[in-house]
């Protein structure tokens, strides 16, 4: 599903943010990417959804090298990848419903289908009652759930989460991870960048650890 071959990314000369990354992620897999600050977790995800470009190597998604994707094709790729951000990235002047529906509007989904599907997803993340609230009227956990709803509303085959619980306490973090696990159960490939050890312990899955831009381990969480 996702394959990385000798991927290297530089932000500074002679100091690669990622170096010679080789990774294979199967369809429907649930994968943690861990490591300390500056290890390259976010960069790895950004390369997959083309927010950054690899300087070397290939990134294949469904057999297509996205590292060489033309800029005009990037939006189409992103419509098939749901991204969950640590800082939620919700539009403050739009209501919960509108924030979630926006991802479908961008994908040119007919309004009737948008209405139906957004309702379903808000139900799934438990925010039906808050559909008319503005993001700033919600708690951090609720905002993250809106972000999750927006990431999955188009039924993407891949969901990337960059420190999705970075701003949440343990209870809310477990709630969010349970939600991600449920989405993964439906067949969605899930890549989660996190350093939340407690969650890693309680929900063991395959884990790729990065250190200074290199993969230092790849296996199941202990």
């Amino acid at each position, binding site marked *: 599903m996702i394959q990385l071959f000798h991927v290297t990314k530089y932000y500074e000369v002679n100091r690669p943010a990622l170096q010679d990354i080789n990774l294979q992620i199967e369809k429907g897999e649930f994968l943690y990417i861990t490591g300390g600050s500056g290890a390259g977790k976010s960069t790895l995800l950004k390369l997959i959804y083309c927010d950054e470009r690899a300087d070397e190597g290939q990134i294949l998604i469904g057999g297509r090298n996205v590292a060489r994707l033309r800029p005009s094709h990037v939006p*189409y790729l992103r*419509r098939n990848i749901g*991204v969950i951000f640590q800082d939620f*990235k*919700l*539009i403050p002047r739009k209501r919960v419903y509108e924030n979630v529906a926006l991802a479908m509007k*961008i994908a040119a989904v007919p309004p009737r289908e948008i209405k139906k599907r957004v309702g379903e997803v808000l139900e799934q993340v438990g925010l039906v009652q808050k559909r008319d609230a503005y993001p700033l009227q919600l708690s951090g956990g609720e905002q993250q759930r809106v972000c999750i709803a927006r990431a999955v509303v188009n039924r993407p085959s891949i969901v990337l989460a960059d420190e999705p619980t970075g701003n949440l306490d343990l209870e809310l973090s477990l709630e969010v991870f349970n939600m991600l696990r449920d989405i993964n159960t439906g067949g969605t490939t899930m890549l989660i960048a996190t350093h939340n050890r407690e969650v890693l312990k309680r929900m063991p899955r395959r884990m790729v650890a990065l250190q200074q831009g290199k993969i230092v381990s790849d296996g199941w969480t202990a």
Partner: protein
Amino acid sequence: MTVVSTTAISISLIFPGFLFLFYDNLEMLVQSLRGNIQLMVYLEDRATDADVSSLREKIQAERGVAEIAFTGKEKAQEEFRRMGIDNVILDQLEGNPFPASFAVTIRPQVQEDERYLSELADRLRKTKGVEDVHYGAEWLSFLNLFLKKIRAIGAAIGLLLGVTVITLIALTIRLNYYARQGEMEILRLIGASRAFIRLPYLLEGGFLGGIASAASLLILKGIYGYIEGHFAGSGSWMGISYQLRFFPASISVLLLVGGSTLGALGSLISLVLVDHE
């Protein structure tokens, strides 16, 4: 900023709009004058019947003449009396001071041909029995020149203010764009194309331009109403009948579309500049 810009654009559109309105009415007046061009051929008092008859034939043979009408001295005096202008003076004069004349109606095809009219007048002036020929040549030439000048000034001011409108809208859109940069980044990250992100800004520019044009049209309509109310909207001035008019619907729509187009152009320029920063 949006309200300030729209107001500034509306105000800056009023002056060229007013100039255009003035030009439109003046052009209408000139058109109506052109449509009624007559050569008045005044005869000498000593012209004989044979002279008059020969002159009639000569005029009728001219290619640009549609019809001619003869007015004798007596009839000319009668017509003047019927107009009721200062008959007292007329009564004190000895004899009939009015000359006989031919009113020569010009074919529409040559009415705008100033050279032909001038040559025809010169030829007739040299004919035996002719005292003078009048056809308002100077007046028409003056109006034509005046129209040309107004057109040139209007074009220059229009160009200048067009650039002003584009700049103001570009500035407004740019500020709005920067204010919503965070939103646009989110849109980009969740798969929005450039067109999806930019279309609202183009529409906003077009909308601002349209609103500003509509506001300036309303203000112009108010000014026009005031002028029409205080000075008659129709009547006669120096023997020329006139009828003032506001822009017809087609021109109003054209001005609205023009304003919107300028607005959209301003947005486009703004977005292109933002791209190159």
